[in-house]
């Protein structure tokens, strides 16, 4: 399913872009993480970004453990939020930078004795604004492979996956929306994701 994604133009055409970073490659890895939870692709991303994040974090945090925490938190956000990256809106480097800057900002606020209020994602959104929900829905629908796989799931799991992935609702919101206990939503999602992983993996090989 990567081929149709790659044929789309990436945004690596801006005047600020240098040739020193392989932007299409970074986009592809992020896509693989987003769409098939590809651990190999994540390892590539990690190897590219982590040492650089660590060096930048060292400039902001004298404490080594805190600098390591920035790496850990940023990269685990990349793993968990990759589906929120939209390559039509900017480069992968810009997105990872936003994730890193936000982690750093919230951590500095915490350390400076202010609050653990995690304000950064409201100030610098990591995802598209949810007000254009239908637009996001259509975008994802364009990814026909993923959709056809989802549609092979049992209806109950489909509802959860569609709400979660395509409409980007939280598990709590889905529970309310579908009138189900939160635990049920979580277990259906887990089941569905397991199946998706297997099926998407098969298509890859």
């Amino acid at each position, binding site marked *: 399913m990567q081929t149709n994604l790659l044929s789309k133009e990436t945004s690596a055409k801006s005047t600020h872009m240098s040739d020193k970073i392989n932007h299409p490659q970074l986009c592809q890895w992020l896509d693989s993480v987003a769409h098939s939870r590809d651990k190999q692709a994540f390892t590539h991303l990690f190897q590219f970004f982590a040492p650089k994040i660590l060096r930048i974090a060292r400039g902001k945090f004298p404490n080594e453990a805190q600098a390591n925490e920035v790496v850990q938190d940023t990269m685990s956000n990349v793993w968990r939020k990759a589906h929120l990256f939209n390559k039509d809106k900017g480069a992968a*480097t810009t997105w990872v930078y936003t994730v890193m800057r936000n982690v750093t900002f919230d951590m500095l606020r915490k350390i400076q004795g202010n609050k653990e209020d995690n304000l950064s994602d*409201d*100030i*610098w959104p990591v995802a598209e*604004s949810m007000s254009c929900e239908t637009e996001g829905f259509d975008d994802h629908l364009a990814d026909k492979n993923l959709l056809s796989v989802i549609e092979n799931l049992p209806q109950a799991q489909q509802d959860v996956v569609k709400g979660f992935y395509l409409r980007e609702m939280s598990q709590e919101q889905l529970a309310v929306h579908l009138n189900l206990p939160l635990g049920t939503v979580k277990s259906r999602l887990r089941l569905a994701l397991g199946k998706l992983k297997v099926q998407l993996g098969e298509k890859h090989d």
Partner: protein
Amino acid sequence: MINNHPKFELIQAFVNGDLPASLSAGIAIHADMCVECQKTIAQFTEQVAENSFEEEFLDRFIVDDNDALESIAAIDFDHMINAIVDSSDIDVVVPTIEKNISFNDETYIIPTALNSMELGKHAHIGKLTRTRIQLNENEIHTSLLHIQPGGGVPEHTHKGFELTVLLAGSFHDESGEYVKGDFIMLDGSHQHNPVSTNGCLCYTVASAPLHFTKGINKLLNPIGSFIY
């Protein structure tokens, strides 16, 4: 039309994450209403990101001593990767739920940048209503300030800085008329007497008590600390 924008130095600091939450939110609120600044921020962010992750750039500016290199090597990256990919959790963005706030029977949508911030109770003096935003930034105080039609703030200067972002309505002072979206940063050298003919709602960040400059208004010192 918006005529007042943050200067580029502020936008740079904003993108770098170097500003306090109060000022960062002020710029985010302005940019939400200002296409021009949105563009500047997007371009600058892209540039900073590119530089940040470019090996050569890092090599040029960060001198690694051997100790640092050793400790980078000492971090078990493989262990970190495994711990991260072990989790099947996916983060979802909770669709932004619009939050409202009412002043004198008028309801306003709270800017999304302020969504997770804790708001205090309304406090009133004359035609002014203030709600403190609890950011715990020591000498920097952040508020929503509502001015009823015909209300104003007596002539004053600022010991530190005072940022006003107009969220709704308009006001004017000696320098002119301000409209929704305007980003007005004043420092100690400015002296002004804002008046709102039709009422307005502002996001304000002030770093020191306002200093009132004229006759009877000196008696109004409580307003100074009220607004600050």
